[in-house]
């Protein structure tokens, strides 16, 4: 992703470190870097979150629109993911440079949330077959220092958690067209149940049988192949995707998946606790980008 040129010696140092169980920045194999989350920082959106993981910086906003449901799912709302890779994040993203990554990322998010066990989309339905809510999740990559997928997935979950949708009152029907009203009270809103929303955990293959999570860009240089695993809070694996060229042995892969389940459940618990904590803060000052 980000062009870093490492010498063989430097690579060796990183790989050998991992083999010995200690990474260049002192972390363990399954340690994450310090992660910062703030929600509700974009007041014009229905929900928003910003996630910073070291220098990796993503901003996620959720906006709601009304639309007709797709004919095959008349009582399901929709989630649509759009990723924009800002040229600020990396010089390669300039022009259409970030497009491939953006497509991969948004496709991954689509896959992640495509399982019916992740998010109950029927709560986004206003009138079956006629009106549903569509959530547009815009993901803005502001800076990139490794492990983008994990950061984005955590950000999306946090943004959805923080999303407030205006309550819609169906007032009647007119000539086959439904009429609805929104409450004049901005506090009269609904939340989305994200208790099953999954996150992604990326494993970078360092050697034949060793993987690490939350790799730095330098570490990413040392292992060309990664596997991204989606996991729900209950430990259900919902998506799996390999990134980069290379091979995983079955043992490594199943070990990675097993690790993901344990790690994922931990991160989920931790994330929910932190989001609850943030919400319970009174008169919380929005820090945003200031």
């Amino acid at each position, binding site marked *: 992703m980000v062009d870093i040129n490492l010498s063989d010696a430097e690579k060796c140092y990183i790989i050998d470190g991992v083999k010995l169980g200690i990474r260049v920045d002192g972390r363990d194999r399954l340690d994450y870097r310090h992660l910062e989350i703030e929600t509700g920082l974009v*007041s*014009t*959106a*229905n929900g928003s979150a910003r996630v910073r993981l070291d220098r990796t910086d993503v901003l996620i906003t959720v*906006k*709601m*629109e*009304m639309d007709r449901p797709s004919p095959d799912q008349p009582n399901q709302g929709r989630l649509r993911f759009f990723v924009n890779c800002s040229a600020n994040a990396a010089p390669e993203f300039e022009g259409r440079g970030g497009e491939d990554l953006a497509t991969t990322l948004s496709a991954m998010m689509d896959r992640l949330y495509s399982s019916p066990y992740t998010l109950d989309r029927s709560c986004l339905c206003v009138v079956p077959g006629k009106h549903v809510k569509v959530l547009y999740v815009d993901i803005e990559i502001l800076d990139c220092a490794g492990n983008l997928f994990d950061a984005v997935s955590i950000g999306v979950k946090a943004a959805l958690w923080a999303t407030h949708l*205006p309550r*819609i009152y169906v*007032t*009647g*029907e*007119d*000539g*086959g067209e439904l*009429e*609805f*009203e*929104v*409450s*004049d*009270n*901005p*506090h009269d809103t609904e939340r989305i149940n994200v208790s099953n929303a999954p996150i992604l955990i990326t494993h970078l293959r360092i050697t034949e049988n060793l993987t690490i999570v939350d790799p730095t860009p330098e570490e990413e240089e040392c292992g060309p192949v990664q596997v991204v695993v989606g996991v729900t809070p209950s430990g259900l694996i919902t998506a799996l995707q390999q990134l980069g060229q290379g091979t995983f042995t079955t043992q490594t892969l199943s070990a990675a998946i097993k690790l993901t389940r344990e790690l994922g459940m931990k991160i989920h618990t931790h994330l929910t606790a932190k989001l609850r904590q943030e919400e319970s803060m009174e008169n919380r000052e929005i820090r945003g980008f200031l």
Partner: protein
Amino acid sequence: MGLLERKQKTFYRKTKKGNIIKIVREHYIRDDIWCGLDGCGSCEMEDAILEVQNTSDSTLVPQPHHLMIDTNVALHQIDVLCDDSITDVIIPQTVIQEVKHRSLPIYKRLRDLIESSTKRFYVFSNEHHSECYVEQEAKETLNDRNDRAIRIACWWYSQHFKPAKQSVVLITNDFANCMKARTLELKAFTMKEYVASLKSSPGLLDLVANLDKDENEELIQRACIYPPHLGTADINQGVKRGKLHHGVLKTSRNNFLEANVLAEGFTKSILIQGRQNLNRALHDDLVAIELLPEEEWSTPSTVVIDKEKQEEEKEGDSEDEGDDENTLTEEQKLLASGRGKGERQPTARVVGIMKRKWRQYCGIIKKNEITESIRHLFIPADKKIPFIRIETRQPDLLYDKRIIVAIDSWPRDSKNPKGHFVRVIGNIGDKDAENEVILLEHDCPHTKFSESVLNCLPKLPWIITEKDEAEREDLRHLDVCSVDPVGCTDIDDALHCRKLPNGNYEVGVHIADVSHFIRPLTALDKEAQNRSTTVYLTNRRIDMVPDLLSSNLCSLRGNVDRFAFSVIWEITPKAEVQSSRFCKAIIKSRGELTYQQAQARIDDSTMQDDLTNSLRNLNKLAKTLKTKRIDAGALVLASMEVKFHMDPDTDTVVDIVAKQHLETMSMVEEFMLLANVTAAETTLQHFPDCALLRRHPAPPQSNFEPLLAAANSQNITLDVTSNKTLAESLNVATRDNNPFFNSMLRIMTTRCMMQALYFCSGTLEPPEYNHYGLATPTYTHFTSPIRRYADIIVHRLLAVIIEADRTYPELLDSKKLADLSQHINYRHKMAQYAGRGSAEITAIASLRGKVTEFDSYVLFLHKNAIQVLVPTIGQQVTLFLDKRTQKRDDKKKAKKKSPEAMEVDEEITPTFEFNDKELYVKCDDLVLRPFDHLRIQVSVDASDVQHQRVVCQLVHPVIPGFSVPSVSQDTQEPKLKKIKT
């Protein structure tokens, strides 16, 4: 000091397209908002508005105090606030904003009060005040939040005023709010309680509005003004089951809140009354209706509901959606008051709209006094269309313009349909703009002829070739002449007559051979077919075919060779047609005579030339023909068409002349009728299935009811069993004291008639071919191909019959011909309306700027109005029986001197009693019946450029308190002295 904090106000809003968006506004809190009290000490304002009070007039609040009002008080008790004794009022910004949101007219009045320096009304910007700003809480409605904001503001004032020894009293009509305010140790009273406690102004209590109604009602009302429409599936199901019916909605001309639907399976049209029953259906929409239970059936209203008037009296209340309830009930009352006692008609309500017939509408923008507002009302020129709400940011540019607006939607919670501005036509009063409005409103194609159309025209110089001469009969030796009105350039008929050796006459009618130039299926033909007719406006003619044809090559001008399609009869001196034949010919007219010239020639016995003698013979024959026709039962009807003489430069009306009647006119008319009848008979004989004919159905007896009732009121009985009996009874119905009586009767009879229609002979049974007015079994149009497309088709059929031309498939396809006749019928009707509309505008223009008196005759009586006919200008005007103009003046006065407006209005208002059985309007001893002569004063109220209304007032007979004195004799009818009737 200054800016303290930034807040964000968040709210959700539904967009036009039905999406929901979140809106976030910045909101800044300041600490330098002053209280407005002169001598407050702690505040640093420059011009303090409120004065320190030293005494109190109220027994409830003995301390000197200021008032603070809440929103409902502002909305409902504005009359009290206008009173002079109410001064020093603090209006929180919250209230001002809410009032603006809920009722613009009241907002306007409140703003006026704030402007006036004597009232000392102070607007306190509490929303930005650091100590008074409140945020909406999670479980709080917006109303509750606003009430709380007002209480907090009041509390702040009461604390702030303590050092100045002033107090504040909150006036609120909301009981809960009152109680909550008292727990904050505020003084809070209802308006009634407070006003009752005032010692010095006892009369003020009368101004307090009694409002027991819960305001929630208003909210519910606001959500649904109209019942919902059914979906297409439900409608189809309902129609199938017979529960619903469908048909095209036709709005009444007199009353935009009443409409009729002609539904299948009903002999009578179904009545629909009232805004809610009409349920957003517009004129010409295809609607689904549900019959009301029989006990709710109604009769057509006898009141004239003038949309303009309605809206005006409410002073733009239509802006105010909250007030709709009142409007609706008012309208209901008005409708109910006019309900006649006649036979009840099936009545229904609209439950769904199957097909909208929305088009673009011409009209003007109603002036909105709140300049920053972007919402405006659009007044369509078509009286049958309700006002349309549009949004524009450039109202100033549009005020004096005629504009076009398109309707976008009509949601249930909006009283008026919503639309958007399309384009400007031109300035109000501008000749071209007014003409265009008329043409657009009547769907008359009036663009320039396209290049491809013009390419179909023959190239000039146009010469008659030898081939032409070989194909056509050469009739250039005959003494043919044309007789037309003055200034006619599209001459499509000419006549000749010569004595045959056997004593009979040979009479020829020569019609411009338009079908020679307009070949079937060319661009020119398609264009002419689309236009179908030439449209005559008072100052403009919109040709059906390009000028080169209409005024030159086809026009049978004098002393030039022209192609004609001729019909030649042999007629006995007793006017019996011996034989007839059609031929294509070349003629050379000996002269383009006007009716007057022809008449002069006939009357001048010294003129003995061939042309004059043939005119005399024609005239003689025509008289016999006419007698025969009338014996057969043809009706002589009257219209009140007048001719406007315009000054072409200034485009003003110089003179209005009633259309004169000369013998020569009926001479031409008789032969044209004969030619048409002959053409009809010939085409029908050869093409029994695809002749284009014109029928005039006998009107159903019910059509005559208003006529018979009106005649009855004058003790005249008309026999309407057949056209013959009707014609005879019309002939004997005269009144010595009223020379215009018979004409009036005939005008009214005309209005009972059905429309004459073109049709294709194959689509109807022969008895239906009958022409009621002319009393002929078959009839068609043959004589004016330059201005009517139907004649061109008839020409083509005849050309095929005489083997002068080929046929083409469309000509002989009775289905296509039937469709074509429908189209022509529509265009004809529209062209007729356009012509009348133009005459009306011209007539009104001629009245502008002066007060004119006219003789007029009562045409129709209504409960609140009399429609009278003014023959001089050929218009029908409405004399309202309520005191509408004065009322408005009073209102204005009352506004200015509102405090003293307590005096009782001592004017005598006459009461009119309307009897719809015997048809009279009675006022004390005076009884007005149809046909009665009235002298009226007519002027145009041009005070508002946009609303030029014809104001009509009674002069004679005198009704105290209603009629107006006559203007002095010498100024009477200043310009119209030369009236020739």
